[in-house]
């Protein structure tokens, strides 16, 4: 019984993260990104999209999807990520994505501010957003 429960839990957790996609405004000139490019933007290795436009990564502060997202793009746990940001922030070489308080704020920002990029569950996408990367 316990094995069945754990199996269902595993399957369920995989389904939760299977829906995570990277999005921008539907008016963005960016149509598609590779995983390395997503990683470079969200880990502050670049602040530009491949076409040279400014990229502004944003996310929901303290959201659970954050853990799965960074595990997927950079294989980093929350504590590893925290140590990574510490070295960048306090040497002035980078900063983490801006944290917004909730999903409506995030979607509004994505729709209204040029260059913003974030990650969402596919079910949360609005008509004014477009998917530029899906996790395999």
């Amino acid at each position, binding site marked *: 019984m316990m094995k069945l429960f754990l199996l269902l839990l595993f399957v369920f957790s995989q389904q939760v993260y299977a829906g995570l996609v990277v999005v921008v405004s539907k008016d963005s000139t960016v149509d598609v990104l590779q995983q390395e490019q997503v990683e470079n933007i969200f880990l502050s*290795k670049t602040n530009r999209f491949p076409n040279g436009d400014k990229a502004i990564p944003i996310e929901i502060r303290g959201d659970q999807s954050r853990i799965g997202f960074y595990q997927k793009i*950079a294989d980093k746990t929350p504590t590893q990520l925290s140590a990574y940001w*510490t*070295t960048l*922030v306090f040497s*002035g070489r980078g*900063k983490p994505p801006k944290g917004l308080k909730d999903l409506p704020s995030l979607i509004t920002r994505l729709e209204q501010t040029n260059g913003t990029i974030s990650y969402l569950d596919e079910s949360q996408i609005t008509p004014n957003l477009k998917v530029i990367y899906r996790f395999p």
Partner: protein
Amino acid sequence: MVKVALQVFSKNCCSFLSLILLGAGFAATAEPMTERIEFNGFYSLDATFSNNDQSITGKRPGTTIANGDEINLKNSILGAKVSYLTTDTLTVTIQGQTYVDADDDVNVDINWAYVSYDLSNDNYLRAGLFQMPFLQGTELRSVGYSRLWARPIVLDNGAGGFNEFSGVEYQQRFNMDYGSWQFQFGAGVAEHDLDDVDGKAMAIVTARFQAESYWIHSAIAHIEYDMTPMAMPEMTISGDVSMVSLESQVVVDNTQLNFGLSIGDSHGTPSDTMAYLSLAYPLGEFTPYFYYAWHNQEFNDRLGLNDRTPPPPGMGPLPPPPKNGMPPTGNPQMRPPVPDGAFDRDNYALGLRWDIKEGLAVKAHYEIIEQDNKTGVAAPTSAKRSNTVSLSLEGIF
């Protein structure tokens, strides 16, 4: 002029605290301003016990001495950083720290203060006051949470004693399929830990490559300076130091290996060679580690000062222990000649980092410090070997 202005500013702790409060005030009240202001902080609460009066590697400027047979809290520190995005491309940043110094006074100083301009295409130009990007430990010495270990592995004088500079810095990044490169070119005026050494022109070039499971950082620097020898306070001489460093972190099958090497060849101030090797194996939130570090300071009198002015006959005993590992100034008749010879230190440490939650860690650290002082330079202890134990709580906010 810029250097003087920065020095004056760095002494003005009220301005710094006001700025932090101002930043925090804006963060709390004005919505539009919060979009442009970023506030970050770090802290370490460190308790260290040593069986001798031992100089340990500190998180704050200058030498940290752990008094023997007592619990020392002097390696504790609190720091904050405020950045203000004035336009989409121009950012003003100030970072400072407060700590208890060697004289038991509460000290506040600014160690970063710069304007950063985004030139686009991952090029940045910065101007202001910076920590020397010679080794990771020299740049982030005060930020305990950023490193695995309870103490910085780089010894007190870091980059030959020149731990910060005022000037300009250009950064360029390149992202490849297999990793990313970052190059840094800095030039300006270096600042030495000692008042007797007055840094002049300096230049530094660094290269860093970051891949998924490893990074490599290398730096080369050249610094010119004027110094007033302890034995000849009426005289000012010019010297220079050339430094190179190589540092890396590699993760293989969950085992984390860190190593570093730095060499500083100096005329006037001591030449330094430092090497370290660290192994760690994360087990969930616990990371046990071991490291070995070796540091050699050569006090060779390459300028021939001892030949030019021999020490006065019948010179008395050496002065009391210095703050910065160099003989102090004072009565000229009491001064030793220019030191000559080698000062070697070997550090063996065994520790455990416990990441309690994101942004908060506890570290327990046992370290054996062996020293071989052939220079005659006064040191806090003449003991060849000291045992130290540290427990620290380190975090960011």
